[in-house]
């Protein structure tokens, strides 16, 4: 240990000659803590109420103490919400909506990510004629609110015979998210060093080969970012599912709304809370699994040399 490698002995055990001053807790850091705690409570208190209520019996809820802990704890509201809750006259619970949502999610994910990554790649790394103009149009489109083009889209999709089907919703999702996602991919691919692209042009020069073998393997981070964005927005979408979903093809969010609205007799708050939580879980799970990569993906482009 004490025999240094070349010269200069390592003095690991000696006490530091210039110890740094310990930083105490200042008034400023207390203020920051208090502020952050209030912010956290702002989001946590409603969540606490929802979670506890979903485990309470209706008798306890009627007592009116919304902050009390559930006693006894019951899982019945969760089972009911999943299996028996009534949406309109159908009492099959949320599970119908869940599977619809899953069926919508996968095709629209594949469609939107394929479309926009290839478009972004072409715009960023190939000399596309009018690329600037095209990018500008995309940019404008990204800011057009859906409500404006809703009716034309309905007419279009019914003309294409996809209105009211799972595929209809998936295609509309893909088309609507394309402008924004293309911009995201394009900006990411702009960060790839030009020389790598030049080397690929000299080696192969094939649009798809270069994309599949060189560019795609380098885009893991951005795909995870887009995946999280898309899963969240598609799963949480309500308006698209409502307007484009047929009777049997409504996504979970629409079914949830119906469950909450449909009341015979008293409102089953515990069931409604459980239903809301059930609907919110899938994006959360995705976020927890991929969250680490999400942060990496956002910063990866910024600090790459």
């Amino acid at each position, binding site marked *: 240990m004490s025999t240094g490698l070349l010269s200069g002995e390592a003095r690991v055990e000696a006490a530091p000659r210039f110890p740094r001053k310990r930083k105490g807790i200042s008034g400023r850091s207390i203020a920051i803590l208090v502020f952050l705690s209030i912010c956290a409570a702002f989001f946590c208190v409603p969540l606490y109420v929802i979670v506890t209520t979903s485990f309470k019996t209706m008798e306890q809820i009627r007592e009116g103490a919304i902050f009390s802990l559930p006693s006894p704890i019951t899982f019945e509201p969760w089972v009911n919400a999943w299996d028996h809750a009534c949406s309109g006259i159908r009492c099959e619970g949320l599970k119908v909506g869940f599977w619809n949502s899953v069926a919508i999610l996968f095709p629209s994910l594949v469609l939107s990510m394929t479309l926009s990554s290839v478009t972004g790649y072409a715009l960023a790394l190939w000399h596309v004629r009018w690329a600037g103009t095209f990018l500008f149009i995309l940019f404008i489109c990204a800011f057009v609110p859906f409500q404006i083009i809703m009716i034309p889209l309905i007419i279009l999709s019914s003309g294409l015979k996809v209105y009211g089907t799972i595929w209809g919703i998936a295609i509309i999702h893909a088309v609507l998210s394309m402008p924004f996602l293309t911009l995201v991919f394009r900006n990411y691919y702009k960060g790839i060093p030009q*020389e*790598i692209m030049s*080397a690929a*042009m*000299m*080696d192969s*020069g*094939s649009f798809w080969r270069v994309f599949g073998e060189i560019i795609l393997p380098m885009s893991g981070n951005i795909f995870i970012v887009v995946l999280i964005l898309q899963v969240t927005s598609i799963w949480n979408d309500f308006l698209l599912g409502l307007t484009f979903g047929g009777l049997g093809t409504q996504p979970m969010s629409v079914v949830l709304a119906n469950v909450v609205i449909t009341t015979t007799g008293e409102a089953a708050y515990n069931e409604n809370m459980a239903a809301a939580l059930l609907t919110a879980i899938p994006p959360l799970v995705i976020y927890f699994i991929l969250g680490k990569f999400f942060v990496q993906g956002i910063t990866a482009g910024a600090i790459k040399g």
Partner: protein
Amino acid sequence: MPRVTFEDIIKSYGKLTVLKNLDLAIDDGEFLVLLGPSGCGKTTLLNLLAGLLDVTAGRITIGDRDVTDLDPKDRGLAMVFQSYALYPTKTVRGNLKFGLAAHKLPAAEIEQRIAWAARLLQIEPLLDRKPAQLSGGQRQRVAIGRALVKKVGVFLFDEPLSNLDAKLRTEMRLEIKKLHDELKSTIVYVTHDQIEAMTMATRIAVMDAGVIQQFGSPDEIYGRPANLFVAGFIGSPAMNLRPATLSVAGGKVAARAAGVDLDVSRYGFVSPPQDGQSVVVGLRPEHFGEPDAAVTDPAGNFSLPVQYSEKTGSDATAYLKFGDGLIATRVDPEQIGRFRQGDTVNISFPQGKLHVFDAQSGRRL
């Protein structure tokens, strides 16, 4: 076999013209170095040859093929980039393979070529690593390997050594030179480092402002610079360039610069010297004689005060006050002690090493 020619090449971006009516012919097996300061158009010229940029006007041929409008991959070239540009997600083997697989070569041939290049460049143990796991020098070898496996007639190098440290740079310089001797292929090599150019090139094209200033062997470029730009650019420390006036009298020609007469009677003037002509004389720092020792047959003798001196280990340079400027002279480091600031030293410059340029046009006289 490939002979590369550029004919009347123009490259402009909007109103900015980067290359102006450039002609250049590169012989088969030549090691051509494009040398010039940043922004002189040398990399642009290389990219035009590679097909990564399109010419605004002009024709490029390789062998007897007009490649002006061909895609990069169809030109029969391979290129090594400054940043190596290795594919980060592929192994070394994958990097070498990518260009070959794209040309639909049989698998056995691909394997054989990779083995050949790996042996030649001593990267066999690295074949299954990713570029991130390699050192700078190793990456450089892989980048060269990726070009070699294509077995093309013309290799392009875009400042390949500028990201390496000084020691590795010297090593790789020798290796590239050795590769060229072994493979006998044509190499076009871009650099701003004159030492690389002088050591490796069979011919150098010195470029500035989009124009080839001189095209010749390293000895020609150094020994007979065609104009003031080349004279000032080649050589380190740079050549001393001083304005002077010619006087022609009775068969004697002298250049008078800041009160010193330099005898240029035996200088090989291209056109006859005129009395009173404004010229620029060039004196290389390394051609000065030893201090306070006369050289035989000097062109001129100087007696100048020392301004300052610097040592680089193997070399030393003294800067002497001359007129209103400085002239640099290379000195044996053991003698540098004699050059104390303020001292006046006597040095002389030999005949036959002088360069004379026209003051207006900058051309060699």
